[in-house]
């Protein structure tokens, strides 16, 4: 027994998921299901690729073609899937560490190429899976197991970073702002080119507790109070698969 959207898009027998009580990742996963439902895309024409992290467990739960790959490399695997299957809707779901620390280079170069992928970042400002080390999005001054006296690094703004690198769709959502975030995910998937939706998630277990941000409810309330969903960019530019294809055709004598 589950709601129709969950029954349709989540693999039977995999729930309850491993995410902690109040973790925003579950809300973002549901948003993705709703976005696909609204777009009316056949599930068999979707490939969801993830790396490693709490967030990356999404590939085990969602009933699409799924690939659970290695830490930081989801975008590289997704690039391969898209090149081999240009008609497939290829989506990457990643944590902030996965996409912007170990996977940062894959991110910027996929954005630069403007390859038709959609990246959904489940951004909880921390390495959740490994116990709360700071990530490239941990705000300055905040506490993490690897920054017991406060983080001295300045954080990345992943959406802006991607725009700087060449992404042609970028938006910021949050676990709290369900409707806006779902709409952004929908737009990102429909967009031809590299799309990124950086979603504020929440980790009450590590980040919240370490930084005295309260529990699940308080962290949601902070998102409600402090965060404004925003579409940064939507622009059409030459897409990599199409450009590559043109070259191949030209080399074959223009056929």
């Amino acid at each position: 027994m589950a709601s129709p959207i969950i029954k349709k898009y989540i693999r039977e027998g995999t729930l309850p998921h491993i995410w902690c009580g109040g973790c925003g990742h579950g809300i973002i996963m549901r948003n993705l299901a709703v976005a696909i439902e609204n777009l009316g895309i056949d599930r068999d024409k979707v490939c969801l690729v993830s790396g490693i992290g709490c967030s990356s467990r999404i590939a085990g739960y969602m009933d699409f073609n799924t690939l659970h790959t290695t830490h930081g490399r989801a975008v590289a695997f997704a690039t391969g899937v898209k090149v081999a299957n240009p008609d497939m809707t290829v989506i990457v779901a990643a944590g902030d560490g996965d996409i912007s620390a170990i996977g940062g280079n894959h991110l910027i170069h996929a954005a630069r190429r403007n390859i038709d992928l959609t990246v959904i970042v489940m951004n909880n400002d921390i390495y959740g899976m490994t116990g709360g080390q700071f990530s490239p999005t941990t705000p300055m001054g905040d506490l993490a197991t690897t920054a017991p006296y406060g983080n001295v690094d300045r954080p990345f703004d992943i959406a802006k970073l991607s725009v700087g690198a060449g992404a042609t769709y970028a938006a910021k959502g949050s676990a709290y702002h369900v409707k806006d975030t779902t709409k952004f995910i929908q737009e990102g998937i429909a967009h031809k080119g590299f799309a990124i939706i950086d979603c504020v998630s929440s980790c009450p277990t590590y980040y919240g507790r370490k930084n005295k941000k309260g529990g699940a409810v308080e962290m949601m309330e902070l998102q409600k109070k402090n965060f404004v969903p925003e579409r940064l960019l939507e622009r059409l530019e030459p897409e990599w698969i199409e450009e590559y294809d043109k070259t191949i055709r030209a080399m074959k004598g223009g056929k």
Partner: protein
Amino acid sequence: MSKKLIIKEDWCKGCAICVAFCPKKVLDIKKEKATIVNEEACIYCSLCEIRCPDYAIYIEGGK
């Protein structure tokens, strides 16, 4: 078919997000699980359903 509020207890982790964001105070936490305490007040707005990270609460039926 009339609408009904359903809680799937074995998926609920008791985070209380549904309780906090219910505009009609329909829900509460009892024994670490979300519980319906005032169903008559429910307006079936679905805010609990779309915010539940565990899909443990949802509206069934109706259109």
